[in-house]
């Protein structure tokens, strides 16, 4: 078990020392900043009038209060997370092929599956740290703006939705790892992310989003009041997609010929 934690700590160290972690943090910082800006615009109609178009768009976020702000952050995590968490997954797995370091991980004195499992744990940790960062920055920005309707219940509910949205997005991002392995780099997984992003929008619009795992996190985050569209099969499909991604990745590491 100690050896497994060593592997996890090595994976965390590699991620911590990379620039990618700061890039993703920067990308996710945009969520509370932009959300806060919309809230500020909504809260100050004079300012909204002066900037015209943006003021009109800011109306979409609803009222300027804590529930709306937290809802906006959850929606941002659901849609942006699909890209950012997918990007993290793609980097954590794909970099071993791009940097050609994967061969140094194959003949090691522990089961080969330990490496991808450690990578998945690192991705989960990384993703939740980013969500925590969004929550923390959102809290500071919301307090600075002076949003109304603050209560512990509102915050508990907000954190619950943000956490579950993160978890759902992480689940549907696991197939990205499989594509990084079979594609031996970043191109295939990033292609997969783009395709699923597009398809999730299209399928959600035609009304079948609850049956398309990659649309479920956005629906759960209650984009346009869609939370009630979800059912047990939605959760089942998300879990199935997640498990298939993990199983495919572990299977690839365990059984596929490694030519790099």
């Amino acid at each position, binding site marked *: 078990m*100690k*050896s497994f934690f*060593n*592997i996890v*700590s*090595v994976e965390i*160290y*590699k991620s911590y*020392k*990379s*620039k990618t972690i700061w890039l993703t943090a920067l990308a996710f910082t945009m969520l509370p900043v932009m959300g806060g800006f919309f809230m500020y615009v909504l809260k100050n109609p004079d300012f909204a009038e002066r900037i015209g178009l943006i003021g009109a768009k800011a109306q979409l976020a609803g009222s300027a209060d804590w529930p709306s702000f937290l809802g906006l952050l959850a929606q941002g995590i659901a849609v942006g997370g699909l890209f950012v968490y997918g990007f993290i997954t793609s980097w954590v797995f794909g970099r071993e092929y791009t*940097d*050609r*370091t994967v*061969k*140094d*991980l*194959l*003949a*090691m*004195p*522990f*089961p*080969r599956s330990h490496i991808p499992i450690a990578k998945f744990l690192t991705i989960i940790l990384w993703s939740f740290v980013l969500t925590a960062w969004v929550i923390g920055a959102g809290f500071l920005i919301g307090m600075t703006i002076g949003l109304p309707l603050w209560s512990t219940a509102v915050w508990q509910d907000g954190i619950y939705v943000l956490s579950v949205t993160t978890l759902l997005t992480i689940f549907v991002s696991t197939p990205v790892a499989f594509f990084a392995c079979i594609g031996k780099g970043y191109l295939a997984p990033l292609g997969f992310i783009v395709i699923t992003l597009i398809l999730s929008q299209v399928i959600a619009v035609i009304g079948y989003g609850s049956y398309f795992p990659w649309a479920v996190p956005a629906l759960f985050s209650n984009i346009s009041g869609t939370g009630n569209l979800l059912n047990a099969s939605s959760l089942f499909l998300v879990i199935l997609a997640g498990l298939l991604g993990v199983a495919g990745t572990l299977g690839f590491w*365990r*059984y596929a*010929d*490694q*030519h790099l």
Partner: protein
Amino acid sequence: METIRTENLTKNFQGVKAVDHVSLTVDQGDIYGFLGLNGAGKTTTIRMLLGMIRPTSGACYIKGRKIAANSHHVWHHVGYMVETPYAYPELTVKENLLLVQKIRGVKDSSTVPRIINRLQLNKYEHKKVRHLSMGNAQRLGIAKALLHEPEILVLDEPTNGLDPAGIVEIRQLIQDLAHQHGKTIFISSHILGEIARTATKIAIIDDGRLIQELKKEELDYHLSVTLKVKTRDVKYTERILSHAGYQVTDGKEGYLEIKNREAINHPDIVNSFLVNAGYPPTKLFVEEEDLEAYFLRITGREGVSDHEIIL
């Protein structure tokens, strides 16, 4: 004692046999030189040895254990470097080695400084890997392979990118590891002279087939030795030498080649004979075949220009 063994190891890639029924044996303490042209099947064999790819048929054994993707227990004993070494570019040399130490579960904290010293990487230990020269990247690759003090080392082209001084250092290191520490070393190299100097056993692979496996002493017996002679009339000289019972052939660059053991052992007799016949040699010397010439001869590429062969 047998350390590495392959039995009829075969690998097909889309119907093409990359490795074809290769059976080899490496004993403890051997420095096993694995020679072959590019694409001969060296790296594929090494990858199968390390469980990175599965054989189409046949098997590999390390310390008597059959190798498969899940045979992780055996890798405690093995250090390896396959083809060009790579490391995490954003990390320093020391950080890369510390990661290997941690992932391999090496507890001794003096391991990394020691290996840095041994591979003379002191000057670069805080340098990011992306800024290393190819030679130093090669040293780092070898350092990673040696870090856990393995009994068996599998090195694919370990002297690639090293300058002559670096090659000598690595040669000495390999010899030291085998002779002083009893390690078994499986080494593939395109520098045949290097293999000839270090290996205790040599295998030659060509078109996926192992065409020769022999001990260094046996190699010396297989290398051909020729007495080479040049005179002012090569045609006439050839005639009189043949008449005298010597096996003479026309060699390159106007030389005659005599293969008789007696002539090779006593070139003075041949010299006297030619002087007495009125055709004294303008040049006469014994030439021993080196590993490169031997390699080309037994792979059937004798006479092919150096430019046509990339070893």
